[in-house]
């Protein structure tokens, strides 16, 4: 009996998460073409987690599901904040969005990689110049 009650409780929480996710996704879909990459990527990852949680429910892995629900709710809240943050840029007709690099996104990872390689190049150039100058002295 206890197991059934717990199952129902988790099922209800998961359904709430599903509804919240759907609401945020609907909002995102209406502005997707005028939104930063990271919002879309983060939303996809929450959707993946939600699907994972549904599979866990079949296997009755309640602890894992509760953690996913907690994290996903926080993340959906963050995504909403990001969309709110971008609303001014959209209203002004500009799409100059600032993107935080995300290691989980290949394109964003590429930008970060380029940034790191640029900094490495600066350091090597500095070392070469210093060596040339000292050699000349």
């Amino acid at each position, binding site marked *: 009996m206890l197991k059934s009650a717990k199952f129902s409780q988790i*099922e209800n929480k*998961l*359904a709430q998460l*599903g*509804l*919240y*996710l*759907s*609401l945020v*996704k*609907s909002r995102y879909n209406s502005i997707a073409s005028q939104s930063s990459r990271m919002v879309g990527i983060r939303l996809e990852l929450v959707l993946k987690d*939600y699907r994972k949680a*549904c599979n866990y429910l*079949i296997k009755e892995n309640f*602890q*894992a599901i509760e953690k*996913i629900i*907690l*994290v996903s709710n*926080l993340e959906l*809240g*963050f995504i909403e*904040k990001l969309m709110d*943050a*971008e609303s*001014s*840029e959209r209203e002004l007709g500009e799409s*100059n*969005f*600032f993107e*935080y*690099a*995300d*290691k*989980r996104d*290949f394109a964003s*990872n*590429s930008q*970060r*990689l*380029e*940034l*790191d*390689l640029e*900094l*490495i*190049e*600066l*350091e*090597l*150039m*500095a*070392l*070469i*110049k*210093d*060596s*040339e100058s*000292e*050699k000349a002295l």
Partner: protein
Amino acid sequence: MIISKLQVEKLSALIASCHKQANFGKEAGMLGIEIIEEHLAYAEDYFNDAISALKYHNSGQALVACKAGLFQIKMAEKIICLSQKSGSSTLNYLVKQDTEKRKKNIYENEAEFRLEFLANSLAEMKVALEYSNCQISLRAQSTLNSAMDFYNDSLLALKDPDASERAINCAKSGLLQLNLAGAFIVAENELALPGWRELTNLDIASPLSNVDKVISEIAQIRQTLHQLADERVSIENVESANIESSTQAPDKERRARKYWENAYNRYTSGISSFAKENIQHARAELKKAERELSLAREILSDSVVSEDLNNENVLKEHLPVSDLVVLVEHVKEALLSSKVDSSTELIRMTDRLVFLYKKAIEEFESGEFKHAENSAAESMGILKNLRHKLFSK
């Protein structure tokens, strides 16, 4: 338990019934349709799997598929019910629940609270940057990315029931990095970021003491160094200013810059240790950072020079403009996580790059400048090759 075709077909009837409800709801503007339809799509897939299994007389598999399908239908029904219960104000219903929770200040744990605070701050910073259209240097961008990394790490730690403390520390580290990035950007652009509230609550840094002072000094001394360099080169390329002028920069600037770089690296190492719950090491690194910053400050203020400064000889010392070894580690991590083709070969290249760089530094410090130049040039060749392999398609 044996399952019959009739029972499987009942599943199909249930799916059809759910679709009908969902379609009515869609016409009535019910929210949550997308997720409901996804569940029903999965249910249909399971139904097809069950039919296929029965075709090959695999009753066991058909039963498993049926159960999975029923679960998907149940989830769809629950969401329909939830959406209908709250009617057109579904969002308000969810928001109301959230608000009540906040009024009672109930969070599942401290980690949730910290993470939400970091999320708010990340969003605030984004608004401030977009609104002000300010310039963001490589260093500041790198620090902002680091704040985002800590947010992601904290979320991940929250999924682990034994990593609550790590989630808290990662969230705190993220806030500290955001604070530092804000200080860099404000100093670089000589403007206040609109809507960005500097984090003055010292609690975010506990149990690390004085980290807020370290952050403030790092930003201030960097700005002083850039202003000094600016007298000689254009401010547009602030990171390379030291490249153009490293050999012409007065000794005072070079020495101060050296201590600043050391302090910055110590600070970064400290924050990283803090996130990994190594508080002792974090404190030690921050103490060292404070020491390096005070030496830099002494030099720049032309005040009485301490014994430490009197005893050193920086004239034949290379002044690093970035921590190459740490950056190469980031590159390796990126290569591993993005699973690019031939990542093993690329990682070997990065190891060779670091080896040659360290060799060049040793040769420079021993006065073998010709060899140092050659080793550094060889390292640069590897870097160019790496770039070519990664980005040319």
